[in-house]
């Protein structure tokens, strides 16, 4: 896989590229079995300090189990989990410097907001005055100072979530675990909270580990994402790399929308892969370093927004990466339009165009004969 940096990086934060960086959370050959069922299979993973790391995958892929192993609610059947150099195996959850924000928030219904936040501090036998100060600090952090004496049932969903967050941060843990924290929120609130979370994480300088099945959420908040499938990690990379350079059809399909064309590799030479697909008929060229041989079965993946659509033929003779088709369906989403184009082979290719002008009548409509083109570095060939 190409080690070339892809896309603009938000900050110069990339400890995974630094060979001298020490692992902060490490899973070493971890296996977890429940009876006959293997939830996690020989998994190894390194997370660095101050990372916002996301475990992404569908339900049942093992991401929650992995997180619970860091919290201490599950012990690995085989293998070890390390935190800041210490082996966590056998250490119960109440002795780990790790705190978790539960999906259901798990606020103690019989205690006030202040009581909830103070609970963990009381277990540490902190002096009363210090507890009060820390609670005030946390309340201010999540902007709930006026709600200190309310009980959870007297709060709205968004407020409860902030109490859960404050409570899990009160002890200044080394790692904060977030279990699908935004699942219960509506879209608007979710977007606001996503940015609040990243802000908070950077401000406090903590390591966050988030578990989610929502790929948009993972892409928005995470420094790195691990995409999981059936107890194994399929790819670990930054959001940009995951999106632009997925290493498999699974990852390509899981994140965002994708066009997948089946075919075989015609040649691999000088950093350019020639790909042939029955779907298009016309040749495809991709700028990519690929470890494969001619004749290998493979797929060509390209994001719909990278596919241009036009009425005019792209030129004579026909360049590679172009194909003719008929507009089969158009999905108008307001900000973008998705054109479903039917190729002569019967395959459908999607092209997404931003609606850059306010034109109600667009030049391309149903049943039009159109040409689809894309650049040589827009797509990627996948061998698995």
């Amino acid at each position: 896989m190409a080690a070339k940096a892809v896309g603009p990086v938000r900050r110069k934060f990339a400890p995974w590229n630094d060979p001298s960086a020490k692992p902060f959370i490490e899973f070493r050959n971890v296996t977890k079995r429940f009876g006959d069922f293997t939830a996690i299979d020989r998994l190894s993973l390194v997370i660095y300090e101050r990372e916002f790391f996301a475990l992404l995958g569908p339900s049942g892929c093992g991401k929650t189990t992995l997180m619970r192993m860091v919290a201490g609610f599950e012990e690995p059947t085989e293998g070890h989990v390390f935190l800041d150099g210490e082996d966590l195996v056998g250490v119960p959850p109440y002795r780990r410097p790790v705190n978790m924000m539960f999906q259901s928030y798990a606020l103690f219904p019989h205690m006030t907001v202040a009581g909830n936040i103070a609970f963990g501090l009381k277990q540490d036998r902190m002096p009363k005055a210090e507890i009060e100060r820390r609670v005030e600090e946390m309340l201010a952090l999540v902007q709930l100072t006026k709600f200190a004496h309310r009980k959870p049932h007297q709060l709205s969903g968004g407020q409860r979530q902030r109490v859960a967050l404050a409570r899990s941060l009160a002890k200044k843990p080394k790692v904060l675990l977030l279990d699908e924290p935004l699942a219960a929120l509506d879209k608007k609130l979710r977007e606001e909270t996503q940015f609040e979370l990243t802000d908070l994480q950077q401000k406090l300088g903590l390591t966050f580990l988030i578990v989610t099945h929502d790929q948009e959420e993972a892409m928005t908040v995470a420094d790195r994402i691990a995409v999981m499938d059936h107890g194994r990690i399929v790819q670990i990379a930054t959001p940009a790399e995951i999106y632009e350079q997925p290493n498999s059809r699974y990852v390509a399909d899981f994140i965002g929308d994708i066009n997948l064309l089946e075919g075989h590799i015609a040649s691999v030479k000088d950093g350019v892969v020639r790909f042939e697909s029955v779907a298009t008929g016309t040749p495809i060229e991709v700028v990519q370093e690929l470890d494969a041989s001619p004749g290998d079965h493979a797929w060509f993946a390209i994001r719909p927004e990278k596919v241009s659509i036009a009425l005019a033929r792209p030129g004579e003779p026909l360049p590679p990466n172009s194909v003719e088709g008929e507009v089969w369906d158009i999905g108008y989403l307001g900000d973008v339009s998705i054109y479903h184009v039917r190729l002569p082979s019967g395959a459908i290719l999607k092209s997404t165009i931003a609606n850059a002008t306010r034109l109600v009548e667009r030049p391309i409509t149903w049943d039009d004969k159109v040409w689809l083109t894309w650049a040589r570095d827009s797509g990627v060939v996948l061998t698995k």
Partner: protein
Amino acid sequence: MTAAAPTAGTGSESKARRGFSLRWLVVAVPYLWLTAFFLVPFLIVIKISLSQRAVARPPYVPVIDLSAGIEALIAAIQQFSFDNYIWLTQNPLYLRAYGSSLWIAGISTLLVLLVGYPIAYGMARAPRRWQPTLVMLVILPFWTSFLIRVYAWVGILKREGLLNQFLMSLGVIGEPLTILNTNWAVYIGIVYSYLPFMVLPLYAALEKMDQTLLEAAADLGSPPFRSFWQITFPLSLPGVVAGCFLVFIPATGEFVIPDLLGGSNTLMIGRTLWSEFFSNRNWPIASAVAVVLLLLLVVPIVLFQNRAEKEQGAIGKAPVP
């Protein structure tokens, strides 16, 4: 009591030891109590049922003295015999009493079901906000003395009692009915006392039922009566079964109701056991009667236990990956 599920070999020693002792205690205390005060007494009943009556204190032989040594123990065990059981099976009065008890309990259970089902059904179909109040009203009599309420029926059912007065004043009957001291009074008494035990499980089952199923049936052309038999009743069956267990098993051994409301020819094994113990002072026979009663009921009891455990789903929770 830990939330973690420690797998073999991965727990640190001190944690396992401390967690172990606390968990162990939680199980051990009630376990030991029940073994001592529930299981052991049964074993003693069995032991005495194998003994003979004696004019002594206690009124049976042999008396097992654990401190007298193994030989004395063996000698005592050799004195055990099944004579009492043989006597029981050859005694037509007792056989009739067992049969009669099962029969009366069976009929009563059926009656309780017939009376209780419409009540539970009405409660389940009542407006939502009244339902808790209705449940409360059904439970309330339970909190007042059971004995007294049965006793009140004496006043109602006797020849000069209220029921006869009421019916005669309406002109429905000319002569007062003899209900008290017959099996019928016992049926009424059992239905009255055990009604909440049938109504509440039935209500719980009916209340859980998805009403839209009936709407779907109506939409497909099924008349109300047919919908009831083919949809509502089958779905309420768990409640019916639970209620029947809760009525039949204890009713078989009932004492108070047949004693206060029944007649001298109302044969119920609970009364027989009582008089055998208190009046005749024949403890071995009384014990044998109890053991046989238990044997008769052991199948329903075990079935009840299995059902109840399954319902509660109390056997741990499946781990979520």
